[in-house]
């Protein structure tokens, strides 16, 4: 097999991940010492130690989770729809999440009322738009139509959000605008355990789906004839995608292109359709990519504050064009 290739790629990624974590932790505007991350006395923290705990660590963990999670969500959708151009962003999953977040931030109609209202909104929005796409996918035979419907859905929700913006109060508008630019800095240290738990549940569920995913590669009909319970699998995949995309979008704002580009990059590097490797690959490459992107943002923070969404689009869009040029048959 091409096991040798997989081992080499994995080794490189395993080295790159800690490097990019360290890079991310130490490239902020205020220089920190290694010891600042390991305070000896946690009840009496210095300013540097507090900065490390309250800002640097949550931001690093969030980059890790958002990168890995969005890539995994993209891989799941690409396999489900058998379309390398599918992804949470293209298929309107993010748009659905954005719409409900906008509603809860700008109209005062909150869904849960607590500080987790935002996550709830993101999750429900992602799930609803996921179900809508799934229902439409049944009726649309062509893959291109599905992508176009996803884009139309995106435009439609954007229009709805614009209407809300024109009616919103100044501080509501500010809150939404800040959120929509995308930032990895919104998470607090104490929220990390919840996000980490959600993230790990998503990974475990994905790993349990390796066999169905490998079967779906040859199409739902053929997979069904090999004993796959298609409807059940489809629903599970959509649910996991919604968990990843919904929670991450709620916390970090919309982050474009990661879910579309990274799964393709992973397949190109690993050259396999075995989802055991693809899951590991997407988690690693997605995390490394977003850590490095955010490191760059931190380095430039003195001069300009670049939203993460802008940077991922800047890098992702040309890559997707490259994929299209390569794929056109």
């Amino acid at each position, binding site marked *: *097999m*091409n096991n040798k290739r997989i081992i080499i790629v994995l080794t490189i990624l395993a080295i790159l991940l800690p490097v990019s974590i360290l890079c991310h932790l130490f490239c902020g505007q205020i220089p920190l010492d290694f010891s600042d991350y390991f305070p000896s006395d946690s009840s009496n923290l210095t300013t540097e130690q507090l900065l490390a705990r309250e800002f640097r660590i949550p931001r690093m963990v969030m980059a890790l989770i958002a990168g890995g999670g969005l890539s995994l969500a993209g891989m799941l959708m690409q396999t489900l729809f058998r379309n390398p151009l599918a992804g949470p962003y293209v298929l309107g999953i993010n748009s659905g999440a954005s719409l409900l977040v906008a509603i809860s931030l700008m109209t005062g109609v909150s869904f849960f009322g607590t500080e987790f209202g935002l996550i709830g909104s993101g999750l429900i929005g992602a799930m609803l738009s996921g179900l809508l796409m799934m229902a439409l996918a049944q009726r649309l035979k062509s893959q291109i139509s599905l992508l176009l419907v996803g884009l139309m859905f995106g435009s439609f929700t954007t229009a709805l959000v614009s209407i809300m913006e024109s009616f919103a109060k100044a501080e509501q508008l500010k809150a939404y605008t800040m959120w929509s630019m995308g930032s990895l800095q919104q998470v607090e240290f104490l929220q990390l355990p919840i996000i980490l738990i959600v993230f790990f549940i998503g990974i475990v569920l994905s790993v*349990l789906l*390796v*066999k169905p995913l*490998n*079967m779906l*590669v*040859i199409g739902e*009909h*053929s997979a*069904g*004839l*090999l*004993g*796959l*319970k298609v409807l059940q699998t489809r629903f599970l995949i959509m649910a996991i995608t919604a968990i990843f995309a919904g929670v991450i979008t709620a916390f970090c704002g919309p982050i474009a292109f990661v879910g579309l580009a990274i799964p393709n990059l992973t*397949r190109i590097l*690993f*050259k*396999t*359709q*075995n989802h055991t490797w693809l899951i590991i690959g997407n988690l690693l490459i997605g995390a490394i990519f977003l850590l490095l992107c955010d490191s760059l943002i931190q380095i430039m923070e003195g001069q300009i504050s670049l939203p993460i969404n802008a940077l991922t689009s800047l890098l992702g869009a040309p890559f997707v064009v490259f994929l299209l040029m390569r794929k056109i048959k």
Partner: protein
Amino acid sequence: MIQFRNSEIGHKNLLLKIDDLQLSQGKVYALVGRNGAGKSTLLQSIIGSIPLLSGEINVEGIGINQLTINQRARLFAFVESKFSGVEYMNVWEYLALGRAPYTSLTGKLSISDKHIIEIIATELNIRDLLEKQTVKISDGERQICAVARALIQETPIILMDEPTAFLDYINRQKLMELLIKIATKKHKCIVLSTHDIDLCLENKIPFLVANKGFVELTILEDKRDLISHIFELD
């Protein structure tokens, strides 16, 4: 092996009616008929993808509508007219899917699963292809791989929807000989729909003629007879 009793087949409207018909092990049957006669619908009905309007189809005495999805996958293998390949999926990964009805939740192949894949790959002479990508081999090679996957599924019945449609003359003949050999040697019941009447006549395989809403089992050796049968000529 497969037994039809007053089976009425169709999507919503009756397309084909089979009063009494029995297909046995060790044989290849050619399902022929005009476009729209209901060949594909019949194949889909046998595997239970399209429910019967009335009557029954039994396999080894069990009604096909009583089978679970997994039982079905252990009884029938299905070969489509074309497998276009999947980028980055190599032939080994594709063949391994044939073991899916037998592997556990994780899908990990046991030593005996791997052994079966090796044996079939050797028998069909595709060992050289195992590490190649499924998109980078020829149409003929892919079709042999699809047959190999069906054999790896180890089912008593194999159904094929126009398996020779996209093959050249030599590959058609090769595939047909291979199927006859497999059916006799491994006691399988193979039903394939086709428009390739000459090929079936040359290989003397029995015909299932779908015409005017009925399916009839005939062994004809004269092309003229057969054609007039299918196309209702005088």
